[in-house]
């Protein structure tokens, strides 16, 4: 394994590799939170949509 990757996985903040590890985690947290919330809203919307259609049919 290259020195960069060793420092990356060790989260060694004094090196470029370790710093990129923190940057990656932060950006991944942001992207996953956005994606997760959008999926949550879409699922909830689909469930409500089904409920609306059923209540109209009644």
């Amino acid at each position: 394994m290259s020195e960069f990757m060793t420092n990356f996985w060790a989260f060694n903040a004094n090196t470029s590799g370790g710093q990129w590890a923190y940057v990656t985690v932060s950006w991944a947290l942001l992207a996953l939170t956005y994606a997760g919330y959008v999926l949550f809203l879409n699922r909830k919307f689909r469930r409500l949509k089904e409920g609306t259609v059923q209540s109209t049919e009644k």
Partner: protein
Amino acid sequence: MNRRFSAVNLRRPVWLSALGGLALLGFLLGAWYGLVVSPAEATQGELYRITYIHAAAATMGLVGVIVLGVCAVLYLWLGKPIYDLYAVAAAEVSTLFLALTVFGGMIYSKPTLNAFWAWDARLTLSGIMLVLMVGYFVVRALIDDPVRAGRVSAVVALIIAAGAPLNRMATTLFRTVHPARSASIPPDLQVALLINMVAALLVFAYLFFERGRLGRLEAQLEEETSPAPQGTGGVIRV
């Protein structure tokens, strides 16, 4: 039957889809500038790339809290349930951004301050604000009557919103380890920060309106399945 809400179109409006697309493009452009184009900073090195999203999320968290405060005032003043729905939307989205600020900040804090947490004015105020936002939803869940839940939670929202300026000015009012707002940013890094700020604003706007639409659909469904409250004529009086 008097309807408290206009019927919600089940198809997403074109402008909302366009806003969602713009938000996604903004996020991708911000990631490109923040992770690829922008150079490493002189003191913090690569770690500075976290600032682009951390500062943007923190700003949107506070913007959300102010939007929540405005919706709460309008609900208490005019009594229209639509403002309560949008207050919930603002509360949910700003909680998301505040959580990103606090937890993202902890990740940023570890390599720069050598600790995940410091009992410092800015960090503590942000933590308290996040806890209060969770409290907002707890209050809503504890009260069965939707009108009363809306009014009580609007008061809670105003208390939270009143803390937003203090949080914003914490770095100038108190001695803190958190970098001040006025800290100079090199011009070539300012572009990446600006793009990520605009991207976060677009994401915030998209999520806010999408959550608002969902809230309206939820209210419409509730209205169709349960009778309107007696004696109010479908209008909530505060």
